[in-house]
């Protein structure tokens, strides 16, 4: 098969979750004998660009870790806000059509539609089978995370009214309605829609934007090549709880610190890893609150390559986020190393962790309930081993690629 994978941004300038997903999938599909190319949007003006023969775009072709990439950029600057609120882009449409036809692609897999949304229309109009992977809620929520600016969870846009009320007071409701209609158009372009979590399926079904039956559950694969040892709990008098991620409000770090301070058990420790991305006041306040408790240590920023080493040194990982995390990599990584997790009972988090089975869950934003769970483990350390045994290791990159390949094959068999 000739497979084009579309993603809103890509290596080397961008390297977060979705980009890693696209790269991993591309490399594995290549290994399985397919021709794969990445289509992406380039934000930076650095480097040499060619001009598109058809559209008002610059093009840059390059290789990244053996995967051919074609990056597009508008000749006239288009800001993120415009692209977030109006998907219509004839230039992206025309150029994608040209790429699909020239490369003789028979599958277009869109890993994230932001900035290149009209590539889906182009694929449909070029009669290329199209698969759309939804890694966040962007098609429904302009902020992508269903969390309002006042840090409360959003369940329903109410036809854009809540968006205007809580997040975009300067916009008219008609703008949000138009955006939702455009999302529906794009969804209709996809022959198959994938989701990495059951929660996302439920959420989109609940909003009415995409019905449950249109989805295929396809969990993200984990890269096990760096896992060189099985994490073994060292016999110790202390239990180390750990947090790894950004120290920001919506990550619920304050809930965790407050919960820890409510516990008195001297045998437990809390390590907090992560930078604060500008929310220094929040972090400083937490450090101040925690300063009287010698059990809590803030260890600051870490390198991406250190994640697995850090997580595998913890006994239990805490993910206290107060928003609908979809398929949190922290939980996947913890499970890959056999480390149990205590997490909030909402979103993808509540889906991955079953309370009392492979970890513990607590009510979102409730430090009291979290402190009870911490004490439960402190008083019964054997629970950790019980949870470890029940952990299902996340699926591997190869499995995800295999499942995705089956989707592609099915589509081609039907054509």
């Amino acid at each position, binding site marked *: 098969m000739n497979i084009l994978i579309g993603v809103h941004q890509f290596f080397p300038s961008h390297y977060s979750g979705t980009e890693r997903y696209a790269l991993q999938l591309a490399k594995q599909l290549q290994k399985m004998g397919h021709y794969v190319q990445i289509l992406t949007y380039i934000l930076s003006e650095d480097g040499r660009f060619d001009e598109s023969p058809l559209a008002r775009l610059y093009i840059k072709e390059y290789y990244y870790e*053996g995967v051919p990439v074609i990056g597009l950029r508008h000749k006239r600057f288009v800001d993120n806000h415009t692209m977030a609120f109006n998907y219509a882009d*004839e230039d992206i449409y025309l150029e994608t059509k040209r790429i699909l036809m020239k490369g003789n692609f028979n599958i277009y897999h869109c890993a994230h539609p932001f900035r290149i949304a009209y590539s889906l229309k182009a694929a449909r109009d070029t009669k290329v089978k199209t698969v759309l992977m939804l890694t966040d809620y962007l098609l429904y929520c302009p902020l992508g995370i269903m969390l309002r600016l006042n840090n409360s969870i959003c369940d329903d846009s109410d036809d854009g009214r809540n968006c205007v009320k809580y997040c975009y007071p300067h916009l008219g409701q008609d703008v949000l309605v138009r955006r939702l209609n455009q999302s529906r158009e794009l969804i209709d372009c996809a022959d198959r829609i994938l989701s990495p979590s059951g929660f996302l399926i439920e959420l989109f079904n609940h909003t009415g934007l995409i019905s449950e039956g249109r989805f*295929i559950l396809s969990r993200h694969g984990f*890269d096990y090549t760096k896992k060189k040892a099985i994490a073994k709990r060292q016999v110790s008098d202390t239990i180390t709880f750990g947090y790894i991620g950004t120290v920001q409000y919506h990550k619920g770090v304050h809930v965790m610190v407050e919960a820890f301070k409510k516990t008195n058990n001297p045998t437990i420790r809390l390590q907090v890893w992560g930078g604060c991305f500008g929310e220094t006041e929040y972090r400083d306040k937490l450090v101040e609150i925690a300063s009287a408790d010698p059990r809590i240590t803030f260890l600051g920023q870490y390198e991406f390559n250190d994640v697995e080493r850090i997580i595998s040194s913890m006994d239990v990982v805490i993910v206290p986020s107060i928003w609908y995390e979809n398929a949190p990599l922290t939980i996947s990584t913890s499970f890959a190393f056999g480390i149990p997790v205590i997490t909030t009972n909402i979103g993808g988090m509540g889906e991955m962790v079953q309370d009392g089975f492979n970890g513990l869950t607590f009510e979102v934003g409730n430090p009291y309930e979290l402190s009870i769970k911490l004490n439960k483990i402190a008083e019964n350390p054997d629970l950790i081993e019980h949870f470890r045994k029940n952990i299902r*290791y996340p699926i*591997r990159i*190869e499995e995800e690629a*295999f499942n995705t390949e*089956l989707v592609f094959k099915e589509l081609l*068999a039907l054509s």
Partner: protein
Amino acid sequence: MNDESLVSIVVRTKDRPKLLKKALESIVLQDYRPIEVILVNDGGCVLDEEEIRGDLQDIVLHYYHLEQNVGRANAANHGIEKATGKYIGFLDDDDELYPEHITTLVGFLEKSDVKVAYTDSLMIYKEYDAVDREIVDAKSELVFSEEFNYYRLLFDNYIPFMCLLFNREVLERFNPKLELYEDWDLLIRVGEKYPFQHIKKITANYNQWNPDCQISQANKDARFLKSAYLKVVSAHINKITPEIINRYVADYSNVRRLYTTAVNAIEGLNESIDKLNHRIMELDEEGRKKERYINQLGTDYNEQLLAKEKHILVLNRIINDRDVRILELESEIRKKDVFLHALTNTKGYRVLDKARRIRKRLVSETIMQKVNVARSINLLRDEGPRSLIGKVGKRFHFYKNRSTINMFKTLDASSSFRVSINAYKSVIEEPLDIKVSVIVPTKNAGVELDYVLRRVVQQEGIKDIELITIDSGSTDDTVEICKSYTSNVFQIAPEEFHHANTRTLGGEKASGDYLVFITQDSIPVGNQWLYKLIMPVYKDEVSAVSVKQIIRSDADLFATWANFTHNFFMQFERDRVSNSKMFKSFAELDVQSKRIIAGLDNVCMAIKKEVFDKYKFAPGYAEDLDLGIKLINDGHSLMFQASNAVIHSHNRPPLYFFKRSYVDGYSLSELLKVQRLSYDVQAVVESIHYLYCVLKMSLSALDLKSRAYNEVGEVMQSFMEYIVGKMILFDTSWQLIEGDKEFDDFFVDYKPVSHQNIVKELNNDLLFNLKRFADFVSKHKKLSEVRDVFADNVYKLFANTAGSYLATHTMQRIEGFVGGI
């Protein structure tokens, strides 16, 4: 509020009773008390004093109606003389004060040594609206809000008079000789001795009237204004010192500079605006072009749509016709079914059926074939060609092609994906209440064994999973890992291990009704892998199942190519079932068909225990293929699932592939009854060594970084040409070139000798494989990624080729090649 210090407001008026009323209202609304108003009517119209008193409420009024107009200065002086307050302020009859005006000023003065303070006022431009017929505020702006600057005051009166409040001690009299700017003159005199304090707050409206609205003598021409201005300046000329002039000039220069900058900025903005306007026009034009293009597209689209709709109508008619025909045929079929049922239930048919079975056992198939041909001819003659379809044609299909059978023509292409679709959705309708034993031979499996075993025990849909591991001398954590998942951990000595026997032992230990054999590094894909594997066996559709092997994400280039080639050779693209109905004689099939049909693979295979117990694994290599052949020949069906998989591949050194391909080739030729040639082993190995030396030399001569090469194919072409060239120019010193270390060590005991035919054949095989490899790599890799691994891959490819050649061109088995595989 009733504060202590009395404030006197001197109001001058002349012939503006309505405006005066508004002015006085603004005094009444002051939040300060006590206030007295000194109202001086400078020869204007008669005013209703009682009414004014009533309007002023608690504010004391001292009203003076001057019979003659004495001028602004004199009127003001009269007011000052009559004022009794500690503080004196002024208000013209057409201006207004804000309620906090006096409070603001008195509040400051009472607490300070300053004698004069002033606030700010809004300048309100009044004009007459002819439409609504009323005076309206055309514009308002804050002007003159500046800190006190005496030298500035000498040149310009920038303080609105009604904003000032004076301590009466310092207030002088207006110069009655001045018809205009008398207030400014007063400020200059007072300000020289007592600096004023500016309070930055707007507390008054300074109304400016459009000349059309004015009925007073405000319309003064420029000459008069200039003359009045100069009078004031002249009166205070002695105060204008050179220093003051210098400061004024400096200020002027600053202002001039700012003005120039502003003008330039405005010009720049104008240019930008022009450019933008131009660009807007261009964009408009582009937009119009696009619109025309889109309209044209729309027209084309509509025409195409119309054509498509017409075509759809035609197709619908055809479909309708076919539906009708289907109904007719279904009716015919029902009638035939009734007839057949009646026929097969007759005594005569039952008797003949028995006779047919007996005859089949007694009479050879060849004879039967002839009989069937005769029958077919009769049918064809009597009932036409249609009679052959479904009756005879299908069976003939298998006889006519004895070479590679493309069995997928016999399967409905879409049916293979009925399983595929379910592969990523749950296929478990109801868990199977069965016991499945999963048997895993282990040795130094490493950390991934934990993943494999956990995956196995957490499989869904099977009630009882029995995990059995047989370890043959691990020195790492393998046994400990096994024990964490199962108590069925058996250990044997390393020398006791044998691929077939050890697995058979596992089968004997198993208590499940179904057996699954996997290797220690076969990673099941998904949580329903076991269910999907067992289901066809459970349903008795087939006797054994194998699955696809997915390449690992850390596989090297050669492993990737090998996996791809193997899948391609074995046609592992779709699910399939193979059985003896696909061929007449297994022995007469070509090698590829044999492997495809009988290919069981114990990297992952499932089998019913009672079937396995009957056959077991024969002690030898390729025990899985051997079992598959036996099952097929005994009438069992085997399934290969492309929709189910394990992750399995290896990165190995070249020497491993040399030995492995030899062992595989030898075993396959034995199993599949492929005739081997009987070349001398020594000769073949020496020839292999010869070619190996040629390779080393060719690789050392190849400059992979040369700019002449842009593609992998170009490099490979050059390389192959090198090989051909070097074959002729062989030099024994090439033995000393460093190649692959293990290979170099292996060939130490063998000289490189060109046994001509052997080298030629071997080289042909190698070149063929190199070309295929290059074709595959070119599709997926660019040259820069392949440079560093090119030599390694060449050696592996060579090793694979040489091992296979050795196996198929020599008769006796080379025992030394067996160890380590």
